[in-house]
């Protein structure tokens, strides 16, 4: 069965090469909105699904790309574990392959790490329809170039991800959410100062004069931190963080283009529009009608960069343009993986 699906993938890629027509790799389509407009014939990964191996005591799970995040998270939860990077799903059937290809991480990113930090190994099908395996199911591995982590966030432009091994972690025994009233400058100061103290902070969010923190760890540790920091406890903490992660919270309701700015955590950013801050200040969501050039100039001024995350009228480049020497390296790397240029054309930058 599995072999049959792989044969279909191989055939689709060979056909694409022969006809010189791009292939659009797609799981459930939960992230169709993200990146440049998808082109080409759909290569559906959802049939290639299933958890291949999961050893809780090894902290490693391996699953096929079409496996739903819901299934993976349920298997982990049954063993008191979780995906440490708390990925957004953006849809009920979001797949592991899409999660890794998009490389988007959730609220826990600033404390535990991003998707790429937990990718241990991958099997891919490259642009010659060859199956290649990199990394493995072990925590430490420096044999060969780290192609596995390179897949995270590559938006399927380098190859078709077949399966992925991820490092997982235990779920915290206890969590609590607390809120403080303050202005943006105070919030940035507090988030950064607290991140430099031995406090069990696992997520931060600031919007509309309210700073929200999540504390995670042993019950007594969470209680002690709560006592030390004060603030107002928020009973529906889990819902709050889900709303931020899945962008179902009120803030994210809007028609203006939504920009995702990645900036140094202490940076003061001055842009028109409404803003929500995460990751101790390193992630800023901004709804703004300002020109892409204006937004990117503001981000660059503080050594950051900006992605047009959601919006109907997309700018020429959804992702922050790269300096020429860096772009040249990207193009050459793309050719190394996908010499015929068939995978997810235009999804990341105009020509790949």
């Amino acid at each position, binding site marked *: 069965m599995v072999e049959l699906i792989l044969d279909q993938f191989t055939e689709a890629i060979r056909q694409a090469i022969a006809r010189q027509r791009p292939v659009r790799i797609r799981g459930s389509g939960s992230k169709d909105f993200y990146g440049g407009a998808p082109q080409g014939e759909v290569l559906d990964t959802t049939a290639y699904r299933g958890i291949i191996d999961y050893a809780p005591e090894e902290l490693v799970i391996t699953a096929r790309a079409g496996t739903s995040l819901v299934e993976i998270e349920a298997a982990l939860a049954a063993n008191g574990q979780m995906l440490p990077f708390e990925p957004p799903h953006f849809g009920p059937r979001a797949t592991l392959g899409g999660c890794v290809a998009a490389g988007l991480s959730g609220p826990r990113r600033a404390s535990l790490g991003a998707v790429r930090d937990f990718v241990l190994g991958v099997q891919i099908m490259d642009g010659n329809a060859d199956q290649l395996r990199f990394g493995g199911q*072990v925590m430490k591995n420096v044999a060969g170039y780290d192609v596995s982590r390179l897949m995270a966030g590559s938006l399927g432009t380098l190859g078709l991800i077949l399966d992925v091994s991820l490092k997982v972690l235990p779920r915290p025994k206890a969590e609590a959410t607390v809120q403080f009233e303050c202005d943006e400058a105070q919030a940035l100061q507090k988030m950064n100062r607290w991140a430099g103290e031995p406090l069990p902070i696992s997520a931060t969010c600031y919007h509309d004069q309210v700073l929200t923190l999540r504390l995670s760890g042993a019950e007594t*540790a969470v209680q002690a931190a709560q006592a030390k920091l004060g603030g107002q406890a928020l009973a529906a903490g889990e819902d709050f963080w889900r709303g931020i992660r899945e962008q179902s919270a009120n803030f994210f309701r809007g028609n203006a283009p939504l920009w995702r700015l990645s900036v140094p955590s202490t940076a003061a950013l001055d842009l028109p529009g409404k803003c929500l801050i995460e990751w101790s200040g390193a992630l800023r969501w901004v709804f703004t009608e300002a020109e892409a050039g204006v937004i990117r100039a503001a981000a660059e001024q503080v050594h950051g960069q900006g992605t047009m995350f959601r919006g109907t009228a997309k700018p020429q480049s959804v992702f922050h343009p790269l300096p020429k020497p860096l772009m040249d390296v990207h193009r050459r790397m793309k050719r190394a993986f996908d010499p015929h240029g068939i995978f997810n054309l235009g999804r990341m930058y105009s020509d790949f």
Partner: protein
Amino acid sequence: MLLSLAKFSRILHLDPLARTARVQPGVRNLAISEAAAPHHLYYAPDPSSQIICSIGGNVAENSGGVHCLKYGLTVNNILALRVVTIEGEILEIGATALDSAGYDLLALMTGSEGMLGVITEVTVKLLAKPERAQVLMAGFDDIEKAGAAVAAIISAGIIPAGLEMMDKLAIQAAEDFVHAGYPLEAAAILLCELDGTNEEVSEEIKRVHDILQSSGSTSLRTASDDAERLKLWAGRKAAFPAVGRLAPDYYCMDGTIPRKRLAEVLARIRDFSQHYGLRVANVFHAGDGNLHPLILYDANKPGEMARAEAFGAKILELSVEVGGTITGEHGVGVEKIDQMCVQFQPKELTLFHALKAAWDEQGLLNPGKAVPTLHRCAEYGAMHVHQGQVRFPGIPRF
């Protein structure tokens, strides 16, 4: 031509509020933590050579250390690199922001052994120093029980800051050298360090103590103060030089294996040891499966060095066979280049070469390292097929 970066030894900027440090590649690993210490911050990866190893080398090898199960490797603790390409272009890779545009070149560059570019600046993440750290030591009469204890700790939802195992020969060598107070009769010891907030550590120490007790440990000790903690660690940190006192030379291996295969792997290493007539001491980063067998030999005795190398190669091939890797943190270089042929298929090696060419078309940076040519692999394969005709026919091969 040798390109030395030893003089790039300045810490350029340390931002305590943003918790980052921008340093030149020749800065020593420990010097970063020392500079951050007044702000109660530190740089997490701590390879045992941290007094002398440079951060540039750490990036090139993706170095780990005893704390990497909880705090990650170099790749998880750096934010940005300035890289000079062979064409003389300066690339800024990554960012002090957490995400950057394009491919994750920061990950690609980490562990690439200087094959893709020359690193001239590294920006690292600094972490808050844990409020408290405490260590437990347990002795076992059977290495399998020690392995099961490790699995039990992790299954209980505890991620220790450090989780190290040593076998009998390593224990004896270390005890003889630094008198750390290790149980000499034990077949294996486990050192388990917990860190975090005061409350967190109190709770976890109790739970780990219970787990170790019910895992059949023959001795169990919790360090009551920092002096005792450091003493218990001193034996582990001095394990390599301690083993070095047992024989004129030792050959350190670096395979990583799935932890559940530990007992089987150690049994087979014992068989190899008998077969090659060389002793071996095992030091194990038990939390993350990184095994360092130290093969004892005497280079002055004809044939011993070749035997040690053959023994080491068998261990690495065994690591791959059980689902692991030939190198967890020491890198491939030239020494392990033949074992790359065991771990990777020709098509994967071909992609590595294509990636290399995307950065360094003429192959001028560190030529001959990290990735073997397919031709070399073909020859290496042939060596095993025609056993009677290899260079050292007297060496047993199996």
